[in-house]
C-alpha cells in the first residue's frame, strides 16, 4: 500500500519542488529524474498488483478534512477569479458547487464511512501505466519544448516553474482518480484536474487563452455539479459512497440509474463529448505538452475511465443507451468536423473527441466485448495521440506553423519527425495498428448489441476518419519541397519522448494479445463475471497472425526504398510548361510556384453547423433520458 501512496504523493512532491526551482538546468534534471521515478513506480505497481486486485483500508480524518478544506478554499477562489474576469457564470456555478458541497458535507456525508478509500485492480493498473509512462514522457518533452516556447515568446514572463508544478500535480490528481474507491476522494481529485487544466489552458494569459480556460471551467463545473448530485443521491438514498458498492447495485433501480446517469454526465463532460466538446477544442491554445497531456493520458481519460468503470451498470439500460448514443453521435460528428480543419492541433482535438466518443459508446453498450474494445482503444489512443501532439509541437517550433498545409514536404525537411508522424497517423486509423483493431472489435460488439444508430455512426464515421487522416498523411509523404533539413535543432528530450512513444506504438501492437490476456480480460471477468473470447474476432489466432505479418511487412518493406533510386529522375509533369518539379511558367510570364492545398469541404462539413447539430441532438437525448429516469419510467 505504501507504494500506492508513494505513487499518489510523489508527483505532487516533485511538483512543489519544481515551483521552487528557477534554474533551467536543475529543472531539467529534476524533471527527468522525477519522470523516471514515476515511470519506474508505475511499472512496479503494475508488476506487483497485476492480476491481484486489492483494496486498501485507509482512513484518516485529517486527510478527509484537508481535502474538504482545500476544496472549499478552491471553490472560493473560483468564485473570485470568475468575478475578477467578469465570467459570472463561472462564479455562479462555483457558488452552486460550493453550496451543494457544503450541504453534502454537513447533512449527507455524516455517518457514511468508506473503509477502502483506495483500491487497485487491472483497469487501474492500465490507467496507472498510461498516466505514469505517457504523462511522464510528456513532462520530459515539456522541458525541451518549453525552452523553445520561451524563446518564441521572449516578452512573456518566464512562468515555467508554475507550468511544471501544474503538470506534475496533474499526474498526482490523475493517479488519485484511478485509485480512489471513496467517491469523495474521487471527487476531490476530479476537481483538482479541472483546476489544473483551467490554469494550464490559461497559461499564456492571452485573451483567447483566458476565454477558453473559462469555457473549460464552466463546462467542467457543470460536470462537477452532476457528480456532486450523484453523490448526494447515493448518500441520501442508499447511504454509501464507494465505487465498489455502487458497482454491486442493480443498474435498473430508479435512483441508482439516476445517480449513474449523473456520474456518466460528469464523465461525458470530462471526456469532452458533445455537447461539451468545445472545451477541449479551446484547450488548444495551451502550450503543446498541455494539449498532449489533456488529450492522451489525463483529463479526458479520467472521463472515459469513470464511464468504463461504470459500464457494468449501463449494460442494456437507458443509461447505457444515453451514453452510447452520445458517444456514437460525437464520434460521427466530430470526425466530420475534423475534415474542415487545417490546424493540426484542431484536427487532433477533433480526432480525440471522436475517438473518445467511440470509447464512450463502447462503455455505454456495456457488454464485456464492447468494454474490451473501449479499454483497448483507450490504451492505443493515449499512446498514439500523445505522440502526435508532441510531433506537432516540435514541428511547429521548427517550421513555424501548426497548420497542416505548412507541413508540405515535411518528409524532406524533418525526415525522422515526419516518419514518426506518419507512424502516428497510420496508427490512428489503419490496419494493422491498434486503433483500427479496437474499432473492429467495437463494430463487432455494436452489431452484436444490435444498435442501429451506433452501427450507422461507426460505418460513416470510419469512412470520414480515413479522409482527414489520409490527406494529412499525404502532406507528410510529399517529397516536393524547397526547404532544407531543419531537424538538428530538436532538443534531445523531445526526441526521447517522441521516440519512446513511437516504440511504444509499435510495441503495443505486437503485444496487445498479451495485454489483453494479462490485464483486460481478467478485469472484465471480474467486473462482468464472464467474457467470451470468440466475440472479439481478432483474438482468433488466424487474424492475429495476419495482423502480425502485416506489421512486419510494413516495418521492413520501406528499408530498401528510401535510398537513391536507380531510375532516371524526371521532374513532375506540368502540362509542358514546367520549370522544375514545383513550378511552371505562368500566364503573365515569370515562374509560378505550384502549391497544393488539401480539400476541406467546408460547405459539407462546416464545423459550427455540425457542432450545433451535435449539441442539439445530444442535449435532447441526455435531458429526455435523465428526466425519464428521474421519473422512474425505466424502473
Amino acid at each position, binding site marked *: 500500500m505504501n507504494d500506492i501512496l508513494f505513487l499518489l504523493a510523489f508527483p505532487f512532491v516533485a511538483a512543489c519542488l519544481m515551483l521552487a526551482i528557477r534554474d533551467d538546468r536543475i529543472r531539467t534534471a529534476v524533471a527527468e529524474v522525477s519522470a523516471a521515478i514515476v515511470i519506474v513506480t508505475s511499472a512496479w505497481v503494475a508488476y506487483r498488483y497485476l492480476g491481484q486486485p486489492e483494496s486498501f483500508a485507509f482512513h484518516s480524518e485529517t486527510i478527509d478534512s484537508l481535502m474538504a478544506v482545500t476544496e472549499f478554499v478552491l471553490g472560493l477562489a473560483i468564485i473570485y477569479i470568475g468575478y475578477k474576469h467578469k465570467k459570472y457564470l463561472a462564479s455562479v456555478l462555483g457558488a452552486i458547487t460550493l453550496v451543494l458541497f457544503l450541504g453534502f458535507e454537513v447533512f449527507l456525508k455524516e455517518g457514511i464511512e468508506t473503509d477502502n478509500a483506495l483500491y487497485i485492480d487491472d483497469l487501474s493498473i492500465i490507467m496507472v501505466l498510461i498516466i505514469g509512462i505517457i504523462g511522464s514522457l510528456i513532462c520530459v518533452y515539456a522541458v525541451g519544448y518549453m525552452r523553445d516556447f520561451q524563446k518564441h515568446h521572449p516578452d512573456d514572463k518566464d512562468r515555467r516553474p508554475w507550468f511544471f508544478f501544474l503538470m506534475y500535480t496533474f499526474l498526482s490528481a490523475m493517479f488519485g482518480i484511478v485509485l480512489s474507491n471513496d467517491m469523495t476522494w474521487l471527487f476531490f481529485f476530479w476537481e483538482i484536474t479541472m483546476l489544473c487544466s483551467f490554469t494550464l489552458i490559461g497559461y499564456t494569459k492571452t485573451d483567447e487563452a483566458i476565454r477558453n480556460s473559462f469555457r473549460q471551467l464552466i463546462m467542467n463545473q457543470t460536470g462537477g455539479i452532476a457528480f456532486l448530485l450523484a453523490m448526494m443521491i447515493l448518500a441520501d438514498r442508499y447511504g454509501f459512497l464507494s465505487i465498489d458498492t455502487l458497482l454491486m447495485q442493480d443498474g435498473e433501480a430508479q435512483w441508482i440509474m439516476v445517480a449513474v446517469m449523473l456520474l456518466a454526465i460528469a464523465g461525458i463532460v470530462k471526456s469532452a463529448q458533445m455537447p461539451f466538446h468545445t472545451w477541449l477544442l479551446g484547450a488548444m491554445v495551451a502550450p503543446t505538452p498541455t494539449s498532449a497531456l489533456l488529450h492522451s493520458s489525463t483529463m479526458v481519460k479520467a472521463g472515459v475511465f469513470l464511464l468504463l468503470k461504470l459500464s457494468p451498470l449501463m449494460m442494456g439500460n437507458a443509461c447505457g443507451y444515453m451514453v452510447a448514443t452520445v458517444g456514437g453521435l460525437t464520434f460521427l460528428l466530430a470526425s466530420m468536423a475534423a475534415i474542415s480543419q487545417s490546424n493540426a492541433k484542431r484536427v487532433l482535438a477533433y480526432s480525440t473527441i471522436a475517438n473518445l466518443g467511440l470509447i464512450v459508446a463502447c462503455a455505454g453498450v456495456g457488454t464485456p466485448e464492447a468494454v474490451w474494445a473501449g479499454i483497448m482503444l483507450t490504451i492505443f489512443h493515449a499512446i498514439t495521440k500523445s505522440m502526435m501532439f508532441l510531433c506537432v509541437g516540435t514541428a511547429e517550433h521548427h517550421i513555424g506553423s501548426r497548420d497542416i498545409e505548412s507541413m508540405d514536404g515535411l518528409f524532406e525537411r524533418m525526415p525522422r519527425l515526419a516518419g514518426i508522424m506518419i507512424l502516428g497517423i497510420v496508427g490512428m486509423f489503419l*490496419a494493422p495498428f491498434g486503433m483500427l483493431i479496437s474499432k473492429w472489435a467495437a463494430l463487432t460488439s455494436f452489431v452484436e448489441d444490435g444498435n442501429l444508430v451506433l*452501427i450507422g455512426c461507426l460505418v460513416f464515421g470510419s*469512412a470520414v476518419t480515413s479522409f482527414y487522416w489520409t490527406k494529412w*498523411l499525404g502532406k507528410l509523404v510529399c*517529397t516536393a519541397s524547397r526547404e532544407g533539413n531543419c531537424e538538428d535543432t530538436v532538443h534531445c528530450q523531445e526526441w526521447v519522448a517522441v521516440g519512446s512513444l513511437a516504440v511504444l506504438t509499435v510495441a503495443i501492437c505486437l503485444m496487445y494479445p498479451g495485454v489483453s490476456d494479462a490485464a483486460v480480460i481478467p478485469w472484465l471477468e471480474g467486473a462482468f463475471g464472464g467474457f467470451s473470447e470468440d466475440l472479439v474476432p*481478432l483474438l482468433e489466432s488466424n487474424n492475429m497472425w495476419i495482423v502480425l505479418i502485416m506489421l512486419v511487412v510494413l516495418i521492413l*518493406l*520501406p528499408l530498401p526504398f528510401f535510398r537513391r533510386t536507380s531510375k532516371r*529522375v524526371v521532374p513532375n509533369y506540368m502540362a509542358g510548361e514546367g520549370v522544375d518539379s514545383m513550378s511552371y511558367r505562368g500566364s503573365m510570364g515569370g515562374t509560378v510556384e505550384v502549391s497544393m492545398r488539401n*480539400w476541406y469541404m467546408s460547405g459539407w462539413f462546416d464545423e459550427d453547423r455540425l457542432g450545433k447539430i451535435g449539441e442539439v441532438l445530444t442535449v435532447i437525448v441526455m435531458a429526455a433520458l435523465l428526466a425519464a429516469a428521474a421519473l422512474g419510467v425505466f424502473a
Partner: protein
Amino acid sequence: MTTIESILMAVAFIALAPAIGCLLAGVDRKVSARMQKRRGPPILQPAYDVGKFLSKEQITPNSTQDFYVVCFLLFTIGTGAMFFAGMDLLLVIFTLTLAETFLILGAYSSGSPYSQIGAQREMYVAMAYEPVILLMAVCYYLEYGSFSVSDISSSDGMAVVPLIGVFLAFLFVLTMKLRKSPFDLSLSHHAHQDIVRGMATEFSGRTYAMLEISHWYESVMLLGMVALFFANGTVAGIVIGIIAALLAWILEIWIDNGFARMKWQTALKSGWVVTLVLGMGNVAVLLI
C-alpha cells in the same frame, strides 16, 4: 474450410487472378469498343500494355513513390488472398483500405498537382463507398453470425436474398471502386480526364505496370465479393456466383459507357444516400 484448403485457395488466387483480371480488362476494352461501334484492341491488350511498361526505360519523379505502389500491390494481393482463403471479412475490408491508402500516398508523394488532386478525389470517393462495404460485412454477420468468408460461403441459402438491399448498394459502389464512369473521378482508365491521368500522372514504367496488375487483382476480388452473395456451399452456388459476377462485370462496362462523369458532389451524395437507404435499411430489416 480447412487450413490446407485456405492456403490452396490463396495460392490459386495469387496465381490465377492476374490472368483472369487481365482477361476481364481485355473484355472490358473489347466490349467497350463494340459498344462504340469500333473493333477495339485484342483481348490480350492489357497484357501487352503491362509487358511494354515493364520493358520501358524506368523514370520516376522521386525515390519514394515506388514504395507506396509496391505496398499497394502487395496489400491488394494480400486482401484478395485473404478473401479467397475464407478469412475474416472485416480484416479483408480493412486491408483493402490500407492498400487504397498506399495508392493515395503514392499519388501524393511526387507532389504533382494532378496526382494530388486525383488523390483528394479518390479519398472522397472512398468516403462515399466505404460505409457500404462495411455494412455489407455487418449484414453478413447479422445473417450468419460470423464475419468469416468461409463460414458465409458455406452456409446454406444464398445471402443475396436477405441481403438484397446491401447487394444492390454494393453493385452501386462497385462502379466507384472500379473507378468507372460516372464515378471515375480520381483515375480514369480510358476516358480523358480533367486532371490528366489523375493519381497515375506520375506513374510510369514498372510503377504503372504494378498499378495495372493491382487493378487486375482488385477486380477479381471485387467480383469475388459479388459472387459471395450467391455462394451457398454447393457447386451450383459457386457457378451461379461466378455467372452473377460476370454479369456484374458486363453491367459495369455498360454503365461505364452509358454515363458521363458526374459531379463529385453527386458521387458523395448518392453514395451516402444509397448507403443510408439500402444499406442501413437492410441492417434494420435484419435486426428486426
